[in-house]
């Protein structure tokens, strides 16, 4: 009987965790999907995420409006995206290397400006309660869902539909699959990639603001521990499909919640190993889902990472 309830607690905590932890993964991976579909990879999203978290928190603290914080975080993210997109169009500039540089630069800037915001409490994002139908407090708590999560789901569907069915989606996909073909169609390749990277940066910034404004809910320098990069790996796993991105983000969120969930029922031994679960899982997924021999299904042809 005890074991049953313990298992239930863990599963419930992982379910709640999947919803709470997955949102930043979801936003970053959707943004990265769009960027990669246009033929470039932006590894700088880790830095964008951290900067978004800092700027969102700072704006929320100063104005009292967390939603304004989310917006500003997104705008800051698109600035980073614009920088990446602009620099990468210069000849001989490598998009992966620029991404690494922007990751370090963005993190450095966030720590630089974020020093003042480590102590103060900023207003956090509200959540919507979907747990009115149950008396179980744990389940009620699990069903406190942040609007950004719902927005992320909508966004995943919109992006999936848009990439497939709109003229705009076709332009992005053509640019990503073959730059010469896009050029022949009269598409401005660099501009499409610049815009895709900017929108991707916007999403990553929003994902970052979720970290500081909802869960964990405060700004610290250790706030993001590689979520931005794991999301990039997640895009490969999701085969550049926004809907799979959503499912993969849930999976990653559940894995991330494993450590705290086990700790809540008193299993604290090996806590650090369970904390490493998302990284180990990402690595295993990458090992299982890539192949040295054939290019991946759905992979944009121009992408340097899969060539």
């Amino acid at each position, binding site marked *: 009987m005890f074991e049953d309830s313990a298992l239930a607690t863990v599963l419930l905590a992982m379910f709640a965790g999947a919803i709470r932890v997955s949102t930043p993964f979801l936003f970053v991976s959707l943004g990265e999907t769009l960027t990669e579909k246009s033929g470039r990879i932006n*590894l700088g999203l880790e830095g964008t995420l951290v900067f978004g978290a800092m700027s969102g928190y700072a704006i929320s603290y100063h104005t009292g409006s967390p939603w304004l914080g989310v917006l500003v975080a997104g705008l800051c993210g698109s600035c980073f995206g614009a*920088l990446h997109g602009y*620099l990468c169009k*210069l*000849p*001989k*500039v*490598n998009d*992966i*290397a*620029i991404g*690494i*540089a*922007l990751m*370090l*630069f*963005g*993190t*450095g*800037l966030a*720590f*630089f400006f974020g*020093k003042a915001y480590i102590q103060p409490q900023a207003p956090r994002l509200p959540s919507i309660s979907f747990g009115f139908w149950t008396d179980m407090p744990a389940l009620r708590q699990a069903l406190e869902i942040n609007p950004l999560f719902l927005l992320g789901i909508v966004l995943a569907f919109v992006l999936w539909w848009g990439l497939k069915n709109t003229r705009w989606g076709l332009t992005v996909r053509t640019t990503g699959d073959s730059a010469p073909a896009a050029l022949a169609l009269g598409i401005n390749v660099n501009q499409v990639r610049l815009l895709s990277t900017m929108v991707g940066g916007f999403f990553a910034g929003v994902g970052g603001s979720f970290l500081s404004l909802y869960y964990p809910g405060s700004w610290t320098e250790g706030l993001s*521990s*590689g979520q931005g*990069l*794991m999301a*990039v*790996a997640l895009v*490969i796993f999701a085969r550049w499909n926004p809907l799979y991105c959503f499912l993969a983000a849930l999976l990653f969120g559940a894995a991330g919640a494993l450590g705290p969930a086990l700790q809540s029922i008193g299993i604290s*031994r*090996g*806590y*650090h*190993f369970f*904390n*490493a679960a998302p*990284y*180990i899982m*990402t*690595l295993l997924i*990458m*090992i299982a889902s*890539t*192949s*040295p*021999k054939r290019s991946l299904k759905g992979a944009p042809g121009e992408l340097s*990472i899969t060539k």
Partner: protein
Amino acid sequence: MVDVTKADRMAVGQGSALADTLDRFRRSSEFVIMPILALIVSGLLFSIFLLALGKSPADFFSLVWRGGFGTSFSWQNTLVRSSPLIFTALCVAIPARLGLVIIGGEGALVLGGFAAAAIAIPMIPWAPSFLLLPVMALAAIIAGGIWIGLVGALRHYRGVNETIASLLLFYIAVSILNFFVEGALRDPSDPNKPSTMPIGRDNMIGAIPGTDVHWGLVFGIVLATLLYLLMNRTTFGFAARITGGNLRAAQAQGLPVGKLMVISCAIAGACAGLAGFFEVAAIHGKANASLIAGYGFTGILVSFLARHNPLVIVPVAIFLGGIAASGGLIQRRMDLPDATVLVLQGLIFVVLLVSETFYGRLPFFRSKGDL
């Protein structure tokens, strides 16, 4: 008549040989001047950044000079910081010759330092330091070598992107360190910070006589020289550079590309592991979270600034080590956060990569005959 023409021809020949040498010198000077230009430009951009914040750039750069290179004390501080940077930069430079971008050197450093401290625990009561230290170094080399070697193997045999894989392995290495340091291998007599047992003051690596700089710096310089010779004067290095230049051509030539990748990555990881060993054996005396000090990430920048040339890494590591060493002084005197150095480093990195686009396009570095 005939003699005159001959003499003329000889004179012309000599003249053009000299011009050729000058020309070649001017062309190769591009690889020195461009990074320096990039440094100057990033210095200017950073000055604008400081001015926008109402701080004085002149103060900043004079503090960097004083904190990093001004006195013999600051020089020693700089050199202590540049020693791990040499090792971690080598961890980026060697795979870069094969076209691999490894950014997880910090993970190999952490794991190498931990392996060194862990293997020392049962040996401390009986082993003399001349036995203990080599065993620790070996443990660090093996741990680091396996860690990054794994990245190379995954890249070749499974096609896993090495950049992402190496960074994921960094987080996993940190978890391994925390797991043992807060669990089975925790020193119960240390109430403050979870650490392994100290290896003992007598067993630690001493300083170079007359300085406070430990021997890691000397080892780093020797290792950089050896790896320079390996990459530039041996068939292994030649094959590695071919692989980096054109993977398919290397495969078509029958070069063992996979083996080259795994071995290069293992060498790289061993370098970063040694950085961890020296941090444990010469600085901290034990393994704990202080190992995660960002040397692995600064090493990426060092290697890119040095254009992945092991010999150039040494001066560049000293330069960036100096900037890092002045961080404390800048923080106290100018009331700037410690992340200021990170911002400057990031800026240098971005500008440096952008400078790539100007190679071969500035008229000064081109010979007259070029198109």
